[in-house]
């Protein structure tokens, strides 16, 4: 049995990754609550396409199950199991494939509490976002789509600790949670410990303090925005980066407080540009904090095409430290 990160107090553990945190959270949930089970494609003995469930089927037999390639029925089954008192965690192999499960997520799971009074404690893990060479169908960011529907909580962890605690908190929540984990961060993002800062779902975090402009973002784009802020620092600009952590609920108070300090807003997201999280942020700030703004609020998203395959195209499709810096310079020039 492979349980490499079970005891984190051991001194020889020097760093853990974002995907270690996801695996560890699921192991802790399986250990602590008999009602939790994992369901998804290739997640049992194979350990998942990204190894987020490696060793768990062995450690918890009859709690980790391979499903047929039936995304609709996977969520249908999970909702039925939740009605019977279980707390399922479903892994979509890629967020993109959750389009097949869209009906069960937004019509079955999301409407259930409002219609019947019985909440559905379901967590859907969506391996989200782009990585080089992944192409149009293994790269999508679907958080804005799910956030549009009432009855869902949508979280987008950007740090190793958030990946751990937000999955724990999602599974303990009585409502359906769409847990958007970023594939680019899986092995790239490392920390000394999984169990760092534990903030509740619904509270944003100041990832980097500043005073001249606010970047509101989430997930992998937090790291790109911090890089852009580092670049602008060389010219004397102090950029504040707000990590939303959960896009629904949206912690507009933290966003407004930051905009009150800086007077300038740039909302950055990796999803497609029409509508979505960045549009919601700009809309809410304009509505509730128009008087705080010294410049027109700006948005930066991916381009309005499918996510391209080739790394050269992909790198120019999503926001980058370069394009975020450019957008910030434009914002600061007003």
């Amino acid at each position, binding site marked *: 049995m492979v349980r490499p990160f079970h005891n984190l107090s051991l001194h020889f553990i020097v760093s853990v990754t974002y995907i270690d945190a996801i695996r560890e959270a699921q192991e802790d949930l399986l250990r602590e609550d008999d009602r939790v089970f994992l369901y998804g494609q290739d997640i049992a003995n194979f350990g998942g396409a990204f190894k987020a469930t490696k060793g768990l089927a062995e450690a918890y037999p009859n709690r980790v199950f391979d499903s*047929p390639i039936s995304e*609709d029925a996977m969520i*249908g089954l999970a*909702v039925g199991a939740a009605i019977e*008192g279980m707390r399922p965690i479903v892994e979509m192999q890629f967020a993109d494939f959750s389009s097949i499960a869209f009906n069960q997520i937004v*019509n079955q799971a999301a409407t259930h509490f409002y219609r019947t009074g*019985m909440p559905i404690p379901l967590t859907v893990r969506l391996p989200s976002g782009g990585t080089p060479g992944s192409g149009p169908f293994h790269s999508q960011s679907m958080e804005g789509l799910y956030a549009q529907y009432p009855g869902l*909580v949508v979280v987008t962890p950007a740090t190793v600790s958030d990946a751990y605690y937000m999955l724990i908190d999602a599974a303990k929540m009585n409502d359906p949670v769409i847990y958007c984990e970023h594939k680019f961060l899986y092995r790239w993002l490392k920390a000394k410990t999984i169990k760092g800062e534990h903030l*509740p779902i619904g509270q944003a975090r100041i990832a980097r303090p500043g005073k001249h402009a606010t970047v509101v973002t989430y997930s992998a784009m937090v790291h790109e925005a911090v890089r852009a802020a580092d670049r602008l620092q060389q010219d004397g600009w102090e950029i504040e980066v707000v990590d939303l952590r959960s896009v629904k609920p949206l912690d507009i*108070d933290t966003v407004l407080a930051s905009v009150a300090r800086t007077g300038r807003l740039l909302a950055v997201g990796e999803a497609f540009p029409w509508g979505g999280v960045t549009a919601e942020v700009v809309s809410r700030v304009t509505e509730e904090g128009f008087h705080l703004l010294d410049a027109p609020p700006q948005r930066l998203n991916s381009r309005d095409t499918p996510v391209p395959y080739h790394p050269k195209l992909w790198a120019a499709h999503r926001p980058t430290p370069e394009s975020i810096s450019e957008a910030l310079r434009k914002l600061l020039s007003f």
Partner: protein
Amino acid sequence: MLKARILENKLSSLYKAGKIVGGVYLGKGQEAVSGCLGAALIQGKDCFAPLIRDQAGRTAFGEPLIDCTRTYLGSVEGPMKGRDGNIHRGRPDKGMPAMISHLGAQVPLIAGMLFAKRLKGVLEGCVGATCVGDGATSTGAFHEGLNMAAVEKLPMVVVIANNQFAYSTPNNRQFACGDLVERARGYGVGGYSVDGTDLMACASVIGEAVKQARLGKGPQMVVANLLRLSGHGEHDDGSYVPDSARAGYYGRDCIEVAIEQLVEGGYASQAKIDAWREEFSEEVQRAVAQAQQEALPDPYLEKWSALSTTFPYISS
């Protein structure tokens, strides 16, 4: 099934009198199939996901009439509190989930309820059932759900009420196989055909399918052939159904067939059936009257929250 027919005739009258907001969807012609399925299940042990034409099955499974009249009439006392209406109602805590409109969606849902019972160690001797129409067999959810239940060998019974029309679309525009029951073999599940207008045949065949599932023989699929004796909803006159179909074998009314079978078989006298009719009519009247006297939902008192969780860190 007689109680369901009397209730639904009343719902139709209320609809025509403008007393019901939204649509009314009747199970006229499907009562023998639905009632036999509901009667073969045990409330408190089994689970049952009824669909649009399952008033008889709901009643047989134990749903009180007042749940129906309250939901149709919008009473805030009903299981859906005015948040959903008509046939989109249920008592998930009593093993009867509330259907969504998307066809086939309840097939994997019932599979999930059974899957959970297995994980909890209480599956032994339980059955989960759902009813779909011929149209629902064309959906991805139906296919995915039945295949998944077969892979997991869950004790699920799916009854396909083939009433020959999905809204207005006839069977020959819905599927190309000769008979839907042929699909059972492909799914690796038990397959049965039955005359859906014949109460005794339905009781026997559906009863057998439920029995096989209960014995642990995996999913069972029953195709019941019949004709819808009303429109898709009460807004629809069903004029697309050809006269030849109405005059044909499946155009017969399963209630009349059932009464004949009960009387001729010596199960019940005509006098007894007349007494039932009177008793059920009174029961229906009471359920309608009670629901009509109850408060309607109040938008000012409504808890406008789609989540059970509250987030103290968020001001709005």
